[in-house]
């Protein structure tokens, strides 16, 4: 039992990272209908920035906040400079542009911060003895912390989307750009904010992952893949779906590694394919995604 609990908490902590990144993908998808291929890389850039700031002596939490601001600006910049002008001309070319951004940011990170892996300090205590024992199970504070960050972020996003004007405007734009424009919402600004917000969340995800994994240019490559699977599983336009999807993947991974002997960690993808197909068979827009009506 205690072993099971330990595995579940580890799985949920891993899943929280995917959930955070999936949230960022969902926020972008809701605003412009794109899958932001560069989301993970912008996050990695932010994590490198955190590393620079902490090395210069700033406290970790402040560094993360500042890096989130950077992530906001970079992502918003991508929307304004890259996505919007192309979107007008041909939406399918946006994929190519975003893949270009992915490559450029990924390699820019290497140019700016070099190629050596770095250690990123955590906001949570990460010493070997920093665990609490619950039901005879040692649970690491840093892992519980990551799950906590996800919950806090969810609450904040819920408040943003339901209680603030800007959040309501974002939902309106996600729902229908033209009508939003008509009622006087500045759609351009809202899209910019959506991308920026996603950029910040991506940085947060990277800053949560890097302390346990080591910070290198490849940090977000595989989490990005899993996060996009999570977003699709939960429904691309549903924040709650992204979180559920992320946690499902994290727990699935933990179960495969822990209890399915004939499969290993490397067989996660075939298992995810099966889960994805079963879910999408019944709900083609994901667990919580909204169905769209087809018109002739």
């Amino acid at each position: 039992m205690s072993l099971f609990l330990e595995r579940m908490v580890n799985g949920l902590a891993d899943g929280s990272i995917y959930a955070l990144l999936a949230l960022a993908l969902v926020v972008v998808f809701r605003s412009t209908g794109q899958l932001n291929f560069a989301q993970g890389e912008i996050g990695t850039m932010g994590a490198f920035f955190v590393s620079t700031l902490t090395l210069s002596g700033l406290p970790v939490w402040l560094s993360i906040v500042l890096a989130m601001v950077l992530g906001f600006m970079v992502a918003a910049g991508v929307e304004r400079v890259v996505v919007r002008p192309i979107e007008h001309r041909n939406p399918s070319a946006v994929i190519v542009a975003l893949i270009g951004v992915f490559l450029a940011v990924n390699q820019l990170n290497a140019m700016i911060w070099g190629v050596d892996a770095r250690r990123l300090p955590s906001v949570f205590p990460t010493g070997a003895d920093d665990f609490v024992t619950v039901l005879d199970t040692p649970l690491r504070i840093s892992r519980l912390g990551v799950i906590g960050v996800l919950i806090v972020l969810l609450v904040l996003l819920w408040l943003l989307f339901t209680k603030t004007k800007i959040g309501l405007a974002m939902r309106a734009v996600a729902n229908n750009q033209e009508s939003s424009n008509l009622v006087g919402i500045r759609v351009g600004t809202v899209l910019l904010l959506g991308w920026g917000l996603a950029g910040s969340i991506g940085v947060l995800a990277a800053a949560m992952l890097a302390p346990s994994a080591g910070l290198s240019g490849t940090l977000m490559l595989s989490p990005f893949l899993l996060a996009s699977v999570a977003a699709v599983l939960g429904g691309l336009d549903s924040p709650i779906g992204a979180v559920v999807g992320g946690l499902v993947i994290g727990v699935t991974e933990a179960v495969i590694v822990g209890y399915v002997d004939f499969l290993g960690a490397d067989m996660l993808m075939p298992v995810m394919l099966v889960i994805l197909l079963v879910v999408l068979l019944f709900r083609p827009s994901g667990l919580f995604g909204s169905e769209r009506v087809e018109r002739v």
Partner: protein
Amino acid sequence: MDLPRRYMRGSWQNWLGRALLFGVVGLFMFRAVSEWSRSGLGLLTDALIIAIAVTGLNLITGYTGQLSLGHAGFFAIGAYVSAMLVTGKVWTPFIDGNIWTPGWTLPAAAVVCFLIGMVVGVPALRLKGIYLALVTLVFTEAVRAFFKYDKFEGVTGGATGIKGFNYLPPAWTGLDGRADLVTWFFWLSLAILILVSILAAGLIRSRVGRAMVAVRDNETAAAVMGVNLFTIKTVVFGLSGAIAGVAGSLYGLKLTLVEADVPIFGLFGSVTLLVAMVVGGAAQNWGPFVGAMFYVFVNDFARSVGEDPSGSLLLGWLVDDGTTLNGLGGVVFGVLLILFARFVPFGAVGTMRKWRAKVVQVVPRVPLAAMAGAAEIPADSASMAKNTDGDAIPGNNDSGPSELPRASVEGADPSVVRDDESAP
């Protein structure tokens, strides 16, 4: 002289235009073989192999509008099928020692990928846009995981992969064994590219092709008008996968090894093919060829900038002699992709068509007005109407943000008529 000048399809001017195009490309190919160094020819061969795979992708994504990131999976399966057959890893009836000649593994790879492609096509019945793209992407990664799975090691070589095979030119070619290996693969790839392009072009012009375009432009409407969505999606997915599989098979034979971690067998490969397709121009006959050439040669250029920035035109004035900048090649290529998407949004071929249409247009023999009224071929009318934009882009106008590829917003000039030149 009034511009644009209009010519009837099949008129001598139309044929002259085509002859010129083929002549130029053919001349280029012959020059490449005789003049280029082996490395250039090798790179060109890579481009041809990618072009074959993109031709497959173009069928399902470009013409049928089903966004697939699964083609690296087919590519990998094709490569593995060839490798497993030539090294005798799987039991096959009627084959002595289970050892196949490399040439026969190409159609075998096509058959296997066709069958798997049909299965992958089934989810496409329910899934759209990014949902389908992601499911097919997971398919790619799942294929990769299966090839690495240690329980199948006897057949697939596990994480180590399969090595130690080769495809030497057969005697009838008159080529000299190892020394002419590059030339052999070049001609082989070119021949296969021509073959699949002709097949693809034929398919596009057939009823099936018109049904594909109808599905892309408005699935519901197509279904209402009698297109069997199940058949179209599964069969086209199968064909598309088969073509990508043949490309993978060539790739594996050229590389002389297969290993699941080769980047082109995973996410990177799927993205490569998609980029090449869009850059060349989705739903364009010449798109795959042009896109693959762009991808391979521009990437090569970007890498050469990164290798020696001081020696390049682009950055030579900026950096000191002998500097190497980590990752510079990648940044250059990324930026070039962004610029390309910004300024050539409909892909190279689409944009060239648009420019050309300002000067010369080819109109079908049946007048447009008569065509629009032709009620007796309902499945085709939607596609013909859409076909007039000359920049056919996959997707659906009405489906909203749940679909990534949407029809072009701009450039729908009804006077510009798509001409279906047969492919290279």
